[in-house]
């Protein structure tokens, strides 16, 4: 009895989460433009998607900005963490406080203040300003994910490497960096998704005539969404799904290996 209720409950949750996405996927293959009736299977919206310069350039902007800003943020953030490590505990805590403010701050405030800043300095808004803004808001996430990897343990590993004759640089490259790597990688992924996802900050810091996927969708809402956007959303969803599955498979493989190792 209990179990049935549990299963029904899970089913309802799943439906709420995934039914809208299923609807989106189905509609992306709909022949008609209608959002209510499925008239037949067709790939014409995918065709339209890949033949629309507007869409193509929005996709290009979104992903190049995401990759580049995530890369820059990862490098800057990681260096910041390493630099902070040499500071006194008190200054470190103060800096971490400052680091956390942008994370909690509403996007709208960040967006408007960045726009104001660019207006005052008379910086022409466009691709570069979006890139700059995204890099700025990604850095705190990188710091947050790398910082916990730098601890007493990493420090003593570094000392052990020096003790065995390594130079500081060699010890960092061979010992410290591999220790930080998981944090650096997840910081990069986090930044990438934050950047792809962002609408508000992008909206305020983009110039006229440049769009990312999110601002494009927003502008199309006013004139009526075309099903080619469903096609785009479907592609993004499937891509994310594939990445997730790959990561999970790899994870379970290493888990299994570890388990085998411990059973020896």
């Amino acid at each position, binding site marked *: 009895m209990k179990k049935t209720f549990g299963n029904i409950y899970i089913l309802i949750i799943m439906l709420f989460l995934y039914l809208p996405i299923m609807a989106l996927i189905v509609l992306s293959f709909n022949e008609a433009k209608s959002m209510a009736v499925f008239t037949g299977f067709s790939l014409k919206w995918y065709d339209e998607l890949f033949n629309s310069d507007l869409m193509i350039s929005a996709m290009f902007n979104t992903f190049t900005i995401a990759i580049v800003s995530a890369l820059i943020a990862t490098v800057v953030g990681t260096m910041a963490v390493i630099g902070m490590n040499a500071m006194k505990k008190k200054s470190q805590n103060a800096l971490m406080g400052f680091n956390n403010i942008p994370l909690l701050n509403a996007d709208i405030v960040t967006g408007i203040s960045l726009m104001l800043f660019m207006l005052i300095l008379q910086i022409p808004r466009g691709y570069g300003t979006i890139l700059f803004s995204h890099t700025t808001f990604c850095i705190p996430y990188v710091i947050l994910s790398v910082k916990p990897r730098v601890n007493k*343990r990493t420090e*003593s*590993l570094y*000392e*052990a*490497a*020096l*003790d*065995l*004759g*390594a*130079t500081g640089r*060699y010890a960092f490259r*061979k*010992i410290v960096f*591999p*220790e930080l790597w998981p944090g650096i990688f997840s910081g990069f992924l986090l930044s990438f998704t934050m950047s792809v996802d962002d609408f508000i900050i992008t909206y305020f810091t983009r110039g006229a005539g440049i769009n990312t996927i999110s601002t494009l969708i927003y502008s199309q809402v006013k004139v009526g969404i075309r099903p080619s956007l469903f096609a785009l959303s479907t592609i993004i969803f499937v891509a994310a799904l594939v990445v997730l599955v790959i990561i999970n498979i790899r994870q379970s493989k290493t888990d299994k290996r*570890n388990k085998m*190792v*411990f059973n*020896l």
Partner: protein
Amino acid sequence: MGELIRLESIVKSYDGNIVLDGINLSVSENEFVTLLGPSGCGKTTTLRLIGGFEKPDEGRIFFDGKEINNVPANQRPVNTVFQNYALFPHMNVGENIAFGLRIKNKTDQYIKDKIEYVLKLVNLKGFETRSIHQLSGGQQQRIAMARAIVNEPRVLLLDEPLGALDLKLRQEMEYELVRLKKELGITFIYVTHDQEEALTMSDKVVVMNEGRIQQEGTPEQIYNEPENAFVADFIGDSNILPGKMIRDYLVMINGIEFPCIDGSEQGFKPRQKVDVVIRPEDIEIKPYGKGLFNGTIISKLFIGMHYEMLVESEDGKIEWLLQNYDQHEVGEKIGMYVKPENIQIMHKPRSEDEEALELDI
């Protein structure tokens, strides 16, 4: 045995807290020296100074007659076995051991042979390709040792290497360490807070407290002739009692006169107030009235090898700690006797610091 390392009036402080307050220490070639003391006494800092991870605020460090204050850690002919082992987690056992040799650009064949040799030395033959996570605590400890000694350091620094192991394994490793030391013929500087480890393995024990060396000497000297109350209390169980010299070779404790072997030759004048240390195993039990003094057993505890008893003196002012192989019952009145050579007379602490320190005990 020539002198290999010398520390000269080393002072070190962190954020205004003095951690080392004028340390003078000499370590000879091929010596097993143990720095012993409670946590926060400065023993690990001393080791880190020798390893090159810290710089002294004042004083000089000599290695083989040359000052090495400004020689960085990676250029010192010493290697360290860290407290938490600090094995590189993303490398396997072989790669960990090879790390130092690779830096020195040794050939692959040399490295392979060396790894095999040290693994045999630490009794972990064939462990080359094991991952660090597969190893037990004791095995990690041995690998940390192997990784350090494979570089053939002149001095091996060991920072509480047995601290994380259980009792049985620790005792096993004590023998291992002494054997290793003999086979390698190098100097060991060992840091621990465990007095048993210190007494078992060392040629020389250096007892430290609050950034100062309290006493240094052979394990026997430290145990049998502690120079002050701190050392006596820290090393083993003991009865530390206030006393007064009557004349040469006679000391009074709690109104009872004890023949002893110290006198003005050792700097103890008649009527001088002193501290007296008597080890619990040195108090012999006699029939009531047949010893030097009498008391009543007020508690008894069986602790493996022997019984530990608390005996209250007849006037009720003093409790004596006794260890004896024979069983006596609580409430039994006994006589007690201590041989003159087992009575250790110590000077009262002089400075206020030391007095404050005594209160802590």
